[in-house]
């Protein structure tokens, strides 16, 4: 009965009017494993921060802390209401793709028909038209990620925590999704914490790139990305920034 026995951290009081994220020397341990240690990272309201780091360095753990799904053993985590796009897409296998996307509305008490109607336009915009009634098992990995992504957006939270959102997409549709996300954030700004293993993606999307050390994770470099949007991956300044990020990751 996990739902009952865990602390209702997701309902912890948010600092009034909070739309940003503040993590201050947070430590999280799992038994003997220290996933993140004395990690500090702030995200201003409306800012997009990409988090890159080696596998197992605590990136997903950081997002769970920000979403209030677990509490730090040490330090402070403060964040506005946050929606999580988990690394595993966690679509409900019995529900159709459209119903999965509309889940946040259904959970809030919106009727089935209204929830579907609200989700359908963006569903089509993400290139999923025609797959409304398909079950997750009938979708490709990339399509499943797009459904999970839409579900995160429809949660309507000011903070988005995206855990490798486009990892399962091929290079072309990944570029499409990145452009789409950048546009969407331009229209309707949100505070975004984007975990990715793709440094290029980080530099394309983020206002700032935070580089984590191997486990236990801590921020070893923060690179501002002062480039105008839309960004071109062949641009000289872009390439220079990407190299700097890769260097910080390798050191």
């Amino acid at each position: 009965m996990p739902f009952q026995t865990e602390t209702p951290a997701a309902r912890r009081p948010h600092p009034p009017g909070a739309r940003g994220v503040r993590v201050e020397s947070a430590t999280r341990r799992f038994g003997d494993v220290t996933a993140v240690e004395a990690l500090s990272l702030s995200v201003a309201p409306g800012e997009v921060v990409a988090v890159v780091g080696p596998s197992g360095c605590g990136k997903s753990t950081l997002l769970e802390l920000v979403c209030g799904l677990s509490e730090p053993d040490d330090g402070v985590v403060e964040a506005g209401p946050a929606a999580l796009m988990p690394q595993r897409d966690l679509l409900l296998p019995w529900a159709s793709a459209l119903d999965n996307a509309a889940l946040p509305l259904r959970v809030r008490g919106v009727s089935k028909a209204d929830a579907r109607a609200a989700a359908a336009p963006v569903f089509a915009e993400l290139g999923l038209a025609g797959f409304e009634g398909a079950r997750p098992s009938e979708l490709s990995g990339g399509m499943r990620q797009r459904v999970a992504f839409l579900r995160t957006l429809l949660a309507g939270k000011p903070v988005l925590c995206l855990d490798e959102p486009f990892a399962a997409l091929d290079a072309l549709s990944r570029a499409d999704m990145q452009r789409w996300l950048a546009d969407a954030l331009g229209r309707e700004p949100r505070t975004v914490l984007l975990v990715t293993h793709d440094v290029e993606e980080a530099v394309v999307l983020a206002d700032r790139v935070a580089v984590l050390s191997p486990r236990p994770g801590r921020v070893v470099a923060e690179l501002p990305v002062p480039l105008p949007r839309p960004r071109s991956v062949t641009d000289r300044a872009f390439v220079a920034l990407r190299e700097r990020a890769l260097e910080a990751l390798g050191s």
Partner: protein
Amino acid sequence: MIALLVVLALLGAWQLYAELGGVDRLILPAPSEIATALVEDRGLLWNNFLVTASEVALGIGAALLLGFACAVALHFWLPLRRATYPLLIGSQAIPIVIVAPLLVVWLGFGMAPKVAIIALICFFPVAVTTLDALGRTDRDTLKLLRTLDATRWSAFRFAEAPAALPAALSGAKIAVAVAVIGAVFAEYAGSSEGLGHLILQSVPQLETARAWAAVVVLAAFAVLLFYALDVAQRRLLPWTRTEGRP
């Protein structure tokens, strides 16, 4: 198809053994004699079948209702679960053979004690499989629902209940298989009609073929119920359908 061949082969072997093995036909009638009894006694069998079938239907209905309700209640309320889980398991340890006559004394010779006994037997597999499955819902899915501000009830409605449905229906399938045995026990304990009663009566009357015919009807009924639930499972749970299974 292969299942049919196996049944035919077994019947053929039985027929040969009954005819050539020198067994008294009052002890082991040949399949052909049982078939004859099925046809000749069809009125008698049918009337008694209707009695047993309604006992089973009511008993299973009660067990499903109580089993699901109990599982959900125990799932939602941990103290209740702690307090009554041993009782639930104890309900399975009740020796039906001994309790059945007592229930008949208590509830009379009519339908009530039979329904009670069947419900008692079927309750356990339904309640326990459902309760277990409700508690085994994917933790990460429940976490995700928490970030969507799901209430306890929405988490149940959108994740736990659908996730538990396949196991609940499997519990119901087990229940159906034992329900028919339960009905026979219940009728043995005291009754004036039903297939179990017919078997009990036919043996001392040396109508062995008729008794076997009643057994055939009971077995066919159990198989039918099982497959009805199987179809329901496929219809209700298309996402669990696995390719290439019979």
